[in-house]
Structure formats: structure tokens, C-alpha cells
């Protein structure tokens, strides 16, 4: 799952890697401070931390465990349980192909295969140049326009497998957004 705008908004940061190490560390401290004493605050803390770092590196998990006074194993157990959390940095563009039922019956799997082929990675992987990560989603609420693909926060509707290559090139050249996101 992406660091969706919801959680990004919660931390308000830009998460562009522009912030310095010390700022990140301070950010993490304030997240721990904010959620430590809230009942059930661990998951919101992890979500906010992921929005800040883009993923959850081991040191972050360790620091959060320390801050919450919980064993690292417990926190790691929570992190690995939920698919929202990721332990690895992801690409600049996170491609999520919807495999909800509506998209599946309208060809979502063929779209996914086309992305796999074009990007030469499998689901859950990132291209070596860190430009693209490939993930699957379960219904983005735009089933009427199935099959649907999300690239970061942009939604592409009625995607055709044959046009995936072109789409990837356009994303890379930054012209995809101007291009209408309907491929009908």
C-alpha cells in the first residue's frame, strides 16, 4: 500500500528525502511522544512513522519499541501482520494494480502481467533504479471504470494491457498526468 495522502497529511511532511537525518530523528521522537500514552497508539504511530520515512527501517521499529516500552518482537509482529507496512524503501512511483473482483473480471490480471513484463519486476518488488514499485490493490472504489491502476495518488481508468508500456514511458517523462487518465 502507498503512504496514502491520509497518513501523509497526518504528519504534514513532504517525505521527499529532503529532510535531514536529525530532522527525521526529531520527527520520530515527537511521533513516539504523541502516541506513547494513547490507548492503542502503536499502529497510528507506525503509520505516521511510515509516512515520514517512506518505509519502516529496522532502527525505526527498534526506537518505537523502546519508546512504547514493548519488546521489538511484538512491534515487528504488528508490522509484519499488516500489509500497509513496508520494511523496504519503495520506488519513486508506486504502481498499484487493482485486483478487486470488478477489475479482475474486466482484465485486471492482464494489466498486472503487462506491468510485470514492462518493469521486469514481480509484485512487491522495486526496479533496481528505484523508479517503480509494483503492488496490487483491492478495489479503489472506481469499479465503474475498471480495470483501474493507481500510480502514487493518480488514478488511471480503463487501462488496456497493450498501452501499459506507453503509460510507463509517459510517467517517466512526466507527461502522464497531463494525458487524460482515461484510456478508453
Amino acid at each position, binding site marked *: *500500500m502507498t503512504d*496514502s*495522502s*491520509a*497518513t501523509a*497529511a497526518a504528519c504534514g511532511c513532504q517525505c521527499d528525502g529532503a529532510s535531514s537525518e536529525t530532522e527525521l530523528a526529531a520527527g520520530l521522537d515527537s511521533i513516539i511522544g504523541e502516541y506513547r500514552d494513547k*490507548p*492503542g*497508539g*502503536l*499502529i*497510528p504511530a*507506525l*503509520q505516521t512513522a511510515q509516512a515520514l520515512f517512506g518505509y519502516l527501517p529496522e532502527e525505526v521499529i527498534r526506537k518505537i519499541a523502546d519508546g512504547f516500552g514493548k519488546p521489538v518482537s511484538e512491534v515487528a*509482529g*504488528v508490522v509484519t*501482520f*499488516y*500489509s*500497509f*507496512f513496508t520494511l523496504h524503501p519503495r520506488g519513486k512511483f508506486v504502481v498499484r494494480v487493482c*485486483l*478487486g*473482483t*470488478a*477489475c*479482475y*473480471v*474486466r482484465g485486471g490480471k492482464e494489466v498486472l502481467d503487462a506491468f510485470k*513484463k514492462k518493469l521486469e519486476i514481480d509484485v512487491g518488488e522495486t526496479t533496481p533504479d528505484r523508479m517503480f514499485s509494483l503492488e496490487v*490493490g*483491492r*478495489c*479503489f*472504489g*472506481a*469499479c*465503474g*471504470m*475498471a480495470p483501474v491502476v493507481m500510480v502514487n*495518488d*493518480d*488514478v488511471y*481508468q480503463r487501462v488496456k494491457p*497493450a498501452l501499459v508500456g506507453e503509460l510507463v514511458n509517459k510517467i517517466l517523462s512526466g507527461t502522464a498526468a497531463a494525458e*487524460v*487518465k*482515461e484510456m478508453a
Partner: protein
Amino acid sequence: MAYKQYILVCGGTACESNRGIELFAALKKAVEENGLVNDVQVVRTGCLGFCEKGPIVKILPQDTFYVEVKPEDAEEIVKEHLVKGRVVSRLLYDKNQSKRNVGIEGIDFYQKQFRIVLRNCGVIDPDKIDEYIARDGYKALEKALFEMKPRDVIDEVSKSGLRGRGGAGFPTGKKWEFAAVQPAGQKYMVCNADEGDPGAYMDRSTLEGDPHSVLEAMAIAGYSIGADTGFIYIRAEYPLAIQRLENAIKQAHEYGLLGKNILGSGFSFNIEIRLGAGAFVCGEETALLASIEGKRGMPSPRPPFPAVKGLWGCPTVINNVETLANIPVILLKGNLWFSKIGTATSKGTKVFALTGKINNSGLIEVPMGTTLREIIFDIGGGIRGGKAFKAAQTGGPSGGMIPPQFLDTPIDYENLSKIGSIMGSGGLIVMDEDDCIPDVTKFYLDFTVDESCGKCAPCRIGGRKLLNYLANICNGEGKLEDIDKMLAISEAMSRASLCGLGQTASNPVQSSLRYFMDEYREHIVDKKCRAGKCKNLLSYSINTEKCVGCTACARVCPVNAIAGERKQPHVIDSAKCIKCGQCFDVCKFNAVNRS
């Protein structure tokens, strides 16, 4: 109403992501440029339901309904329609609609619908509490707080016959009563907005289009059971719904409709939002509570039921979004009004996300007791491309496949379970002749296996076994005796799994074996997939009589399996062919055979 005319622009996800934001801005700009700011208001609403033909724009008071509107059309709509009063007919759904009949009542899609839950969706601006209040919003809360005892509220809900819309259909009044009779002390009210069914977006649209209706209902429920705190557990993948909820909560606080001492009644109620982190099983109530507590979202055995021992050990009521959205209407219109809608055992309406191979995909609300035929053919406009209807799945991965012979069954909780499916939360996927039943069944199992939390063995191991059998069948390696094994495993899973996920995961298998045995048999015995979906069972060849040698197939083949000179018939080397089907799709002369 100070304005003479209103332009409603759909702000639901499907429309908004289809340049809807740009469209909204363009309409605003056009209104300004034409000097109409004092006469015309542009409103961004929630989903109008007709997502297939989005972005949707509606003009009031004429009720003109425009479909597939692009930002470039904004100028024309304002200049022609608003300034000169001339309908832009090229943007109507039915271009031949008469001038007088251009509203939604002229569109079949809306004719058989009846809106309680979605009463405000597509009507009000969800970011403006005043618009909700203007449509009787928060009146039910006021009525409850000042004219009714908690007991009366529960009575009213019980008598209405409302049952949970999250899947199981448990009577809502009864659930509230269980929590209400627990000794006073800390209690919680939780709204389940996890909406895990992949391919369904009813709850999301309700929250995006009318967030206050759910907040109001939570406060009413809190009042009736004696809870002062509510949680909304919502998927993190729903950023727009979260944003609108946050805004709605803030506004309700400013108006004294949430928070301490609501409207001076002495009753206090606060609502917090918790984001789900991507685990289907967290939609199950005990797992959901574990997740709110910050733990791994694993189900636990019931009893104790959450109404007795829930969040942090306190009595907790968990209700689905749609269940809650009914509550304010029930209190205002009364249980008698509500219980007249629907069937003997299932009262009120049901919202469905109607998707798949249907002409009019979208969000619909129909009275309980409506038939599948009415939904698919009257509202949904039939199957895309004139293909044949094969099956409909309700209840998502927990539901069953409904074959054509039940198209006329009135839909309610009991009837659906009689025919091997469930009401579920409202996903309704339509499949046509091009969908392969074993393949779709495998898709559902793939999902449940992926989402099983692994706590109990029947679900963890049984699910994987079923998936293996299905994969073999789709690969042409299935055996007839596998069928009996699949049935036995399905039985065991339904009976012995700990939570609803495992108990229902085999429903797609059981129902498809019951109604579509011939398709399984074809895969196993004849090694054929009539829908052309199962790659290993297909072979491609070129009909030399039809082939004109255009070379389109040879160019698209990823493994160079097609040979032939330009203008000469081509041939496929079946040893090289990886059955990707691209030649089949690309040939304009129908010269590629698939069998």
C-alpha cells in the same frame, strides 16, 4: 435558497479521479466569468451512483443530468444552459431525451431505486454541515436526546426490524440492547468502515457523500447504550472518506453536536478515527477490536461477545456504516414507516456496488425483495456487449455464485442463504459467458488464503488445499476425485474455523460446484475452458482462409511464434506459443482461433 440555480458536480472517487477536480474548477471559473456568482452555486457532492458514465453533473432546479462531462464542456454548460436556458443535449445520457424529461427520472438506472442510506449522496456538499442540517440532519439526535429515553431509542430500532448490513444481518436493536443492559461504566461504540470485500465501495461512498449521517447515528447509538466514546475504523486506502470524516467531526464539534454536553442535554460523545492497515480479517469484529487496541488483528472466539466484553474489556457495539446511516431516518420517520419497506424478514433497503460485466456499473440502493433480474437488467442496463449472463456473486469472497435460474428470486437475507450465497456487505459482481467459473473461484480463494490470519488450522490449511485443487483444475491437471475432496474440505472449514473468514471462505467453491459442475467437468475431463480464460487449456491457430497476411499478429507475438510472409497466410508454431492471446486480440479479421 439564495441561489437561482445549482450545479452539482460528483465528487465520488470514480468521477473525481476522472478529471473531476479539474471539471469542478472549470465550472466555477465559467460561472465567475459569466458574472453568475450570485445566481449560481457550484457544489461538489458525493457519488451520484452512475459511476460508469462519470463524471456526472446535475443542474438544479431543472434536474438536468449530464454524463461523461469533461472540463472542456464547462464553458458550454454555463453559456448555453445557465445563461440561455438551452439544454446541452450532446451531454445527456440519452441524447434523444425530450426537452422536458432530462432529469434522472428519465433514466432507467434510477427508476427502481429507493434511497434511504444514500438520501443525501449526490445532493449535498459533504463538507458543509449546514447542508446536512437543512435536510433534517441532527434532528434525530435532538429527538433522541430530548424526547426519548435510551430504552425508547432501542425499542424504535428493534421494532423497525433493521438488521446489520455488514454481512451477518444480526438485528441491530438486539445488539444495542445487549450492550445497554451491561452495568454502567465505560462502553464504546465502534463503526466498522473497513469494507474489505474487494470490489465493493458502498461504505466508502456513503462516508464520502454523507459523513454526518454516520456521525449522528453513532451519537444516537452511544446515547442508547451509555457510551461516551466512538471509534471509526476505516481503511487507510480511503483518503477522501477520511478527509471528509475529519472535517465533519470538526464541524459537528463547532456546532455542539459532538463533544461535551451535546446541545445542553448533559450527554457527551466523542469520535476518533482509526486507520486500518490493510488486513481483510480486521473487518471481523473481534479482530477489528484487537487492531484498535494496537495488536495484530487476529479474531478471538466468541462468546464473550463484544457487546459484553469488547474494546479493552468494555461493552462495545460494532456496527457497519450502512447500518448506521439508516438510524436517523428510522428515528424521524418511525419504525412503522421503515418496516413497511422490504420483505417479511428483511426490512428497509440494501445498497449494492453493482459491477463487473454490466452496462451501468454504479452504486445503487433498492428495497429488500427486489430481484436480481430487476437489478441487472432494469437498473444495470443488462450485460455489456450483449453477452449472456452467467452468474452473479453477492457477498464477495464469503458469498456464493448465483446462476441464471435464480434471477427472479427476491433478494433478502433468507433467500440468498437458501440458494447458497449471502447478503454480504453489498458487493454484486456480474459475470458473463467470457468469465470462467473455476477461474473466478480460484480468484476468491487466492484472496482468502492471502488474507487468512493463520490462527486456526481449518482455514489456514484447508484454504490452501482448496486453492491447490482449483489451480490444478485450471491448469488442466485436475482429477474428478478432487471434487469430493474439495467438498469435504469445504465442509470442514465451514464447521471448524474460528472466525467468519474461514467459515465462509469455501462458499464460492461450494456454490460453484453446485451450479456449474459442467464447467468443472469440462476442465477436468475434456481439458477445455469454454470461456477461454485458462491458458493451459487453450490452443491458438490461424485460419488460413480468413488470414489476409496483415502481419499484425506476428508483430505482436512476444515469442516470435508466428511465421508467414506479408499478404500470405500465417502459421503459429504451437511449440513456441506461450498462449498469451495477443494475436487473438489483435487480429482484425477473426482469423486467429482459440479452442
